C-alpha cells in the first residue's frame, strides 16, 4: 500500500513500529520507576524491554514484507528504513541481553538503563525514517540525549560520569553546528525536506551557492561528530572507556550505524550533485580517520580503548562508502553494519566477561594466554577480531563487508581507487593491534597470578555464540545478506522537484 503522508492518520500508520517502540518504552519507564532499584527488577525490566523490541521487530518485519510505500513527505517508507530498524533493534536487544548480566556486576542497578536503550533506539528509528531535516534533528536528539544518560548510567563510577559529561558537552556543541547547517541549507533552498533540497539544487542550479555549501559543511561537521570521524572523534575513546561495556558496544555499533543511516539518506537524496564540494573534504576526513584511528589504536594498552579506536576506524571505512555517493554505497553500509554489529557485540561480550567486576578497564595483558584456560572464549574473541580486521573465512562476514565497501568505492563514478588503496593499507596497520590481541591470547603463557574470568553467563554466552556463529555463517554464505542489502539500498534522488518559493539572497 501507499501511505499518503499528508493525511495525519496515515502518517501515524506509517510510523507504526516506531510508535510501538515508543509506547512500550514509555510504559516500561513507568514500570521501571515503580519499584526500588534491585538486580531482580532491572532483570525483569530488561526482559520486558526485550519483549518490546521483539514486538517492534515483528512490526518492522510486517511493514517490510508488506512492501508499503509512501507519498513524498517528512518520513520515508522504504526498505532502507526497515533494514536499518532491524539492525538497530538487534543491536539494542544484544545490548540489553549483555546488560542484564553485566549491570549487577558493575553495580548498575537502575532498571531505567534498559528503557533508555529503547528510547535511544526509538530515536534511531526516527532517524532512519526521516526525510526531513527537522525529523533528522529530532531523531538525533532523541537518540543522543538517551545515550548521554546511558554513558553516565553508572553513578558510582567517576569515569562513567566523566565520559558522560564529555559526551554531552561536545555532543551539544556539535549539535549546534548541525543545526546551524540545517538553518543555512533551509535558507539557501527554502525547504527542509531532504528530497526537495536535492531537487531544488537541480532546479535552481545551487551547486556553487555559498550559503548552501557552508550549510552542508556545517552539517558535515555535525555528522562527522556523530560518526566519530577524525578530527571530530576525540570524545569517542574517552566515552567508550568510561561507559559500561554493553553501552560501549551499543555506542560503537548501533549509534554509529544510526548516524551513518542518516548520513547516507541525506547525502544520497539531497547532496548527490554537490560532490564537487564535498568529495575532497570527505575523502580527507575518511583517509584521516582510517590513518589516525589505526595508528593511535596501535599504542593502546586498554582493550576497550583499543576497540574504541577500532570503531573510529570502521567509521572511516564507511565514510569511503559515503564518498562513493552511490546506491551501492548504501547497500555496502547495510551489509557492513550487520557484520560490524555482530563483530562488535561478540568482542564486547568477551570484554565484558573478562573484565574484572567493578572496573570496565581491561588491560591487554589480562588476555595473556587466555587460550590455555578458556580456549573457546579465545577462539570466539579471535573470530570477532578477525572479522573487524576483515579477514576472509576466519573473520567471516567481516571480509565481505569490507569487500562490499571496496566494491562501492571502485565502481563509484568518483574514482575512489586511491582511497581504496588507503583503506587496505591502513587495514594492514590494523592487523598490528587486532593480531596483537590474538597473539597475546594464543602465544603468550598464562601468568600464574592471572585471575580467571568467571564462566560465561548464559545470556552473554548466547550473544557471543550467536554473533560468532552468524559471523562465520555469513562469511561462508554471504549471498542472501548481500542481496538483502542491495534490495534495501537507498535510491539516489529521484523525486521530481516540487514547486518552490523564491530564493534567499
Amino acid at each position, binding site marked *: 500500500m501507499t501511505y499518503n503522508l499528508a493525511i495525519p492518520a496515515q502518517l501515524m500508520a506509517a510510523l507504526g513500529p516506531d510508535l510501538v517502540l515508543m509506547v512500550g518504552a514509555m510504559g516500561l519507564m513507568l514500570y521501571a520507576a515503580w519499584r526500588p532499584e534491585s538486580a531482580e527488577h532491572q532483570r525483569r525490566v530488561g526482559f520486558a524491554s526485550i519483549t518490546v523490541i521483539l514486538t517492534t521487530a515483528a512490526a518492522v518485519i510486517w511493514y517490510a514484507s508488506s512492501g508499503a510505500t509512501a507519498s513524498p513527505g517528512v518520513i520515508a517508507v522504504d526498505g532502507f528504513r526497515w533494514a536499518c530498524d532491524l539492525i538497530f533493534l538487534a543491536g539494542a536487544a544484544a545490548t540489553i541481553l549483555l546488560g542484564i548480566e553485566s549491570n549487577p556486576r558493575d553495580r548498575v542497578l537502575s532498571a531505567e538503563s534498559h528503557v533508555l536503550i529503547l528510547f535511544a533506539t526509538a530515536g534511531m528509528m526516527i532517524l532512519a525514517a526521516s526525510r526531513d531535516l*527537522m525529523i533528522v*534533528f*529530532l531523531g538525533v*536528539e532523541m537518540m543522543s*540525549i538517551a545515550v*548521554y*544518560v546511558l554513558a*553516565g548510567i553508572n*553513578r558510582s563510577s*567517576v*569515569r562513567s*560520569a*566523566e*565520559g*558522560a*559529561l*564529555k559526551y*554531552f*558537552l561536545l555532543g*551539544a*556543541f556539535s*549539535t*549546534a553546528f548541525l*543545526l*546551524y547547517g*540545517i*538553518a*543555512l541549507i*533551509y*535558507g539557501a533552498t*527554502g*525547504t*527542509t525536506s531532504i528530497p526537495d533540497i536535492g531537487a531544488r539544487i537541480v532546479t535552481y542550479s545551487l551547486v556553487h551557492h555559498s550559503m548552501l555549501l557552508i550549510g552542508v559543511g556545517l552539517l558535515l561537521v555535525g555528522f562527522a561528530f556523530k560518526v566519530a570521524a577524525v578530527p571530530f572523534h576525540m570524545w569517542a*575513546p*574517552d*566515552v567508550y*572507556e*568510561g561507559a559500561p561495556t554493553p553501552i560501549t558496544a551499543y555506542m560503537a555499533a548501533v549509534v554509529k550505524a544510526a548516524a551513518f543511516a542518516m548520513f547516507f539518506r541525506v547525502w544520497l537524496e539531497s547532496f548527490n550533485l554537490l560532490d564537487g564540494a564535498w568529495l575532497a573534504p570527505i575523502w580527507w576526513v575518511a583517509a584521516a580517520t582510517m590513518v589516525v584511528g589505526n595508528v593511535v589504536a596501535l599504542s*593502546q594498552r*586498554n582493550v576497550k*580503548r583499543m576497540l574504541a579506536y577500532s570503531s573510529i576506524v570502521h567509521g572511516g571505512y564507511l565514510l569511503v562508502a559515503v564518498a562513493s555517493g552511490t546506491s551501492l554505497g548504501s547497500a555496502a553500509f547495510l551489509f557492513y553494519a550487520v557484520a560490524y554489529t555482530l563483530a562488535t557485540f561478540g568482542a564486547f561480550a568477551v570484554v565484558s566477561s573478562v573484565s574484572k567486576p567493578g572496573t570496565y578497564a581491561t588491560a591487554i595483558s589480562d588476555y595473556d594466554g587466555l587460550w590455555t584456560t578458556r580456549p573457546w572464549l579465545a577462539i570466539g574473541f579471535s573470530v570477532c577480531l578477525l572479522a573487524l580486521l576483515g579477514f576472509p573465512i576466519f573473520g567471516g562476514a567481516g571480509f565481505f563487508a569490507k569487500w562490499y565497501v571496496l566494491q562501492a568505492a571502485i565502481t563509484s563514478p568518483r574514482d575512489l581507487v586511491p582511497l581504496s588503496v588507503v583503506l587496505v593499507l591502513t587495514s594492514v596497520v590494523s592487523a598490528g593491534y587486532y593480531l596483537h590481541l590474538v597473539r597475546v591470547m594464543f602465544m603468550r603463557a598464562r601468568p600464574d597470578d592471572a585471575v580467571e574470568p568467571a564462566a560465561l553467563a548464559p545470556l552473554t554466552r548466547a550473544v557471543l555464540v550467536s554473533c560468532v556463529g552468524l559471523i562465520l555463517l555469513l562469511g561462508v554464505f554471504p549471498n542472501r545478506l548481500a542481496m538483502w542489502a542491495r534490495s534495501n539500498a537507498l535510491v539516489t534522488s529521484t523525486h521530481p522537484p516540487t514547486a518552490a*518559493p*523564491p530564493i*534567499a*539572497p
Partner: protein
Amino acid sequence: MLAESLTLSAALFTIGVVGVLTRRNAIIVFMCVELMLNAVNLSFVALSRLYGATGQVFVIFVMTVAAAEAAVGLAIIIAIFRHKKSVNLQDINLLRG
C-alpha cells in the same frame, strides 16, 4: 532586514563558539552552547519570513529539545560534581590517551 538578522545570528553563534573554547566551567560552557542554539533559532525565525512557517516550527522543536538537553546536561554535571567536587573542565581528565 534579513541580511542583518542572519549576520547577527552568525555573530551570536561565533560568540557561543568562542565561549565554549575559552571557558572552563562546565555550566558556562553549556550556556554558551545554548547561546549557539538560540543564534540558530534567530536564523530560522528570520528565514521563515521568506519561506513560511517551517522555520518557526523548527524553532519550537529546537527549544523543546534544548530544554530536554538542559535537564540531562545539568544532571550529568551534578553527577560529576558529586564525584569531583568541581565542575572545572580542566580537572576532568581521568580518561585520556
